[in-house]
């Protein structure tokens, strides 16, 4: 068994997941449903093409002007009465959150869904410091009860089926009677959470879009827990990665539409929150204080590379996972990363380093299903190839974290030999001759191809190559 994050760890974890029929059925069923719903939402190819081009342009422009937009965002937020703090690392971000909570003597926190908080491992951190941090998104609540991490960025508990959740609730929630009825399970969670919203001294949320022009923090959700977390407790702390900024308010509607249709196949979500500041004088609700923590965590390094900066366009819809033939078979936990699936395969090696995580860049057949559905046009397959290249780079010219760390002498030699053989017509013909004439003398199971032939018949070269056939038939050479 490989250590987490060690090269080969993905393969080991994936192989284990593949042997779990219940897990595979849960993912397959859920992803099939999501793909069908999304397809229905983008039934008009021309509309999809135009909207996606617009979304890509908006995000590309935002990333191109990232420093300037972040400055403007800070200025606008501050003007709106939001207290803005910057964090380069997740440790710094955790410290900022803790400091704010301590200042208010908060010991109970409710959280809306936030992938940045997952990057920070915020719940564990707060718990170590004696603060209860309760997830209020139903999926997040379920996995927190079971001590798990999200297996999907939009549907964190998608790896579990109804029966598994029923057993979990029966085991962990005292007032719950055993039921497999979805509505009843939801009601059980709702009863627990309702109370917690009113007890909490602070609420924490993520941010879907932060508008530089107005300092508006947009929050997309379906359960109302986002609104409760950000409006009921007296203090609201919003967490965002630096890439979440957009230039103008008018950029939001197309991105919002792309997000909900791509993610869950919804035309619009049940709730869309636009947070502009704390409770104003004379206002009857809303938090007294609003804080915005802006986290880098390796993103500015990605920003510095023209091609790879496309990674930062992501609006976290999860469509790439839903359509990934690898993700749908192994699930999210096999990646051992905050962001699983295709977006995680390009993001994680860049933030955690190619030395440790280059295997993720290879965990793809490069089928391109992810890039095809990406609502902001991130060329994920191309970026995977770019990262594979950075991982085996022989020089020191790259800014990508861990570049060259996966280079091995044996593999480089093998590819050099491959290139030598394929740039020399005579050497190539010799190999063809050897393969066609000698392969029948080889055993049925070749050791070098053992992984291939364990489930497939050994591929047999033909008796004559195409080169020989064209020669025989007198096909023109020039």
């Amino acid at each position, binding site marked *: 068994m490989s250590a987490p994050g060690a090269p080969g760890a993905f393969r080991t974890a994936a192989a284990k997941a593949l042997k779990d029929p219940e897990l595979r059925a849960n993912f397959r069923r859920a992803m099939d449903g999501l793909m069908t719903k999304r397809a229905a939402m983008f039934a008009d190819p021309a509309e999809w093409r135009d909207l996606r081009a617009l979304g890509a342009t908006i995000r590309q422009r935002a990333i191109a002007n990232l420093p300037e937009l972040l400055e403007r965002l800070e200025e606008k937020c501050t003007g709106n009465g939001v207290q803005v703090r910057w964090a380069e690392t997740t440790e710094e971000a955790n410290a900022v959150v803790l400091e704010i909570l301590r200042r208010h003597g908060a010991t109970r926190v409710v959280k809306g869904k936030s992938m940045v908080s997952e990057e920070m491992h915020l719940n564990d951190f707060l718990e170590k410091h004696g603060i209860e941090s309760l997830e209020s998104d139903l999926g997040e609540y379920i996995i927190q009860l079971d001590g798990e991490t999200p297996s999907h960025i939009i549907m964190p508990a998608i790896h579990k089926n109804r029966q598994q959740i029923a057993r979990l609730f029966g085991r962990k929630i005292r007032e719950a009677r055993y039921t497999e009825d979805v509505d009843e399970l939801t009601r059980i969670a709702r009863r627990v959470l309702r109370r917690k919203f009113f007890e909490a001294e602070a609420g924490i949320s993520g941010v879907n879009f932060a508008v530089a022009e107005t300092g508006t923090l947009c929050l997309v959700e379906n359960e109302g827990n986002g609104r409760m977390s950000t409006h009921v407790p007296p203090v609201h702390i919003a967490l965002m990665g630096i890439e979440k900024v957009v230039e103008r308010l008018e950029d939001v509607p197309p991105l919002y539409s792309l997000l909900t249709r791509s993610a869950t196949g919804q035309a619009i979500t049940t709730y869309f929150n636009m947070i502009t500041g704390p409770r104003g004088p004379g206002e009857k609700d809303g938090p007294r204080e609003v804080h915005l923590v802006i986290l880098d965590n390796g993103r500015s390094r990605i920003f510095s590379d023209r091609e790879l900066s496309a990674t930062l366009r992501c609006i976290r819809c999860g469509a790439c996972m839903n359509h990934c033939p690898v993700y749908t078979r192994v699930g999210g936990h096999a990646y051992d990363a905050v962001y699983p699936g295709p977006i995680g395969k390009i993001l994680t090696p860049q933030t955690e380093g190619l030395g440790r995580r280059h295997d993720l860049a290879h965990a793809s057949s490069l089928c391109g299903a992810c890039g095809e559905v990406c609502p902001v046009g991130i060329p994920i397959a191309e970026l995977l190839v770019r990262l594979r290249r950075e*991982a085996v780079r022989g020089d020191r010219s790259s800014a990508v974290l861990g570049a060259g760390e996966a280079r091995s002498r044996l593999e480089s030699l093998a590819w050099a030999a491959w290139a030598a053989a394929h740039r020399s017509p005579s050497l190539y013909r010799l190999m063809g001759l050897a393969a066609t004439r000698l392969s029948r003398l080889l055993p049925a199971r070749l050791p070098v191809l053992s992984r291939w032939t364990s489930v497939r*018949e050994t591929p047999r070269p033909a008796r004559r190559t195409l080169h020989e056939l064209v020669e025989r038939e007198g096909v023109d050479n020039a």
Partner: protein
Amino acid sequence: MSLSEPGGRAKPEAVYYYGTCLMDLFFPEAGMAGIRLLRREGLRVVFPRGQTCCAQPAFNCGYHEEARAVARAQIALFPRPYPIVVPSGSCAAMMKHHYPALFEGDPFQEQAEAFASRVFELTQFLADVLEVELSDHGESVRVAWHPSCHSLREMGIAEEPKSLLAQLVNVERVPLIRERECCGFGGTFSVREPEISAAMVEDKATDVVSTGASLLLSGDGGCLLNIGGRLAARGDRVRPTHVAEFLWERTK
């Protein structure tokens, strides 16, 4: 000389044929069938003998220096302005879409781009440029069609092969349930991630068998080796066949 512009309808007098390394070794008859289909339309087909591999394996593994060396050798063999027809969506995509990027900033860039602009996948060329008319001489048969991912998503070829098959009156094409899903080949992916690749090809093989087809058709040798290899190991009798060979055998 009436050379075809991409998207144009003018028939060229001559075309280059890029056989690909997989066809060279594993599907030479299908490679020849592609040549025969083109010749039947009155074209002179040129097969430069020194051709080897489009360099996709090295490119996809991140060995771009090595890929450039091999790609440069291929490009040099196709100097005339003829269209370059490739019986593989994946190799065609490599040459059409990745060669320009591979030589970005290289003195060879212009030549690579000119080469790339002349690349066509075989069924695309037959359907869109030559607008071939096929008459079926074969017996009634049920087939399944598997589009390769690179053909579908990088070359944007979805309807062309189906439209060719639809011209064959005795051929019934039964769609796969997950037609657009990858078969799990992915070149070195199938060796680096054998367990996942095996799970993918297993699902694809099951999908193929459930159509009741006696032939599995595809335009890419990689997919055929992969799915065909699995079908054979399972003991299923569906025969993997390259679409070029199928089209030729039924219409010759």
